[in-house]
């Protein structure tokens, strides 16, 4: 079995579109929200990120997803509060969300 076939077998068929849609909504919100980076990320976390079921992700993407989730949990322990968010980490997490969306998109586009 070559690498490409192995990778394609790993794509969950059922919930895949839902995950992609949630990630796309997250990217749209990050890009178009009028607030600061901390506020945009908080809104993304509470509106979209928490709706994604990590078990439906590719194995390769799951570790990245879990890292992002951990950071978001630390930054936003309570809805509506952005005090605990560090700006540098917020930028890094936002970049990781965008990267995750496009890497999943490119994998499925070639599947």
């Amino acid at each position, binding site marked *: 079995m070559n690498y490409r076939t192995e990778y394609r077998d790993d794509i969950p068929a059922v919930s895949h579109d839902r995950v992609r849609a949630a990630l*796309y909504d997250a*990217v*749209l919100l*990050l*890009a*178009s*929200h*009028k607030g*600061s*980076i901390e506020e*945009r990320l908080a809104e993304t976390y509470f509106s979209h990120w928490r709706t994604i079921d990590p078990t439906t992700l590719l194995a390769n993407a799951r570790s990245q997803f879990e890292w992002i989730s951990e950071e978001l949990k630390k930054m936003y322990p309570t809805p509506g509060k952005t005090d605990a968010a560090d*700006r540098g980490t917020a*930028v890094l997490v*936002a*970049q990781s*969300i*965008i990267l995750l969306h*496009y890497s999943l*998109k*490119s994998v499925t*586009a070639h599947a």
Partner: protein
Amino acid sequence: MHLDKLPERVCSFFPARGRNLLPIVGSVRLPTYVRRVSRASLNANSPAASFSGSGLRPDDKMDATTIRRYLSAAVNTLGADVGTIEQRLRKVYQNELRQLSGNSGLPDPVRTDYEELMADLSGLLEQPGDIDPDRASHLARRVVALNERLINEL
């Protein structure tokens, strides 16, 4: 002298090979023809210096990877940059989107969207005074959508 012969001549100049090569490089004076080639490549009168920005001639097509890189950078700036929606949009308009203007490398359906978006962006950002944040937010969404469409087309 032919440039395609240069690597062999440079390699033959160094007596050491493999892992021993690196420590020696710093202490060796390069032959005259190597230095002359380097200077020529930095010459301000060279043809490459005539083209600013992407380095493309006006009739050159930008390749798909470069187009994708510009649009991905635009989405990344909009999504992960600190600053207001106006600042992010202005940055994206100036640094990324304008680099694609007048370029025929964009696929036809995407080019139409791109041209409409650029017209709307210039209308919003080049007007005097404060800009409408709702309109800016809408245009930011269109930048993301344009990138999605480009990925699907290329």
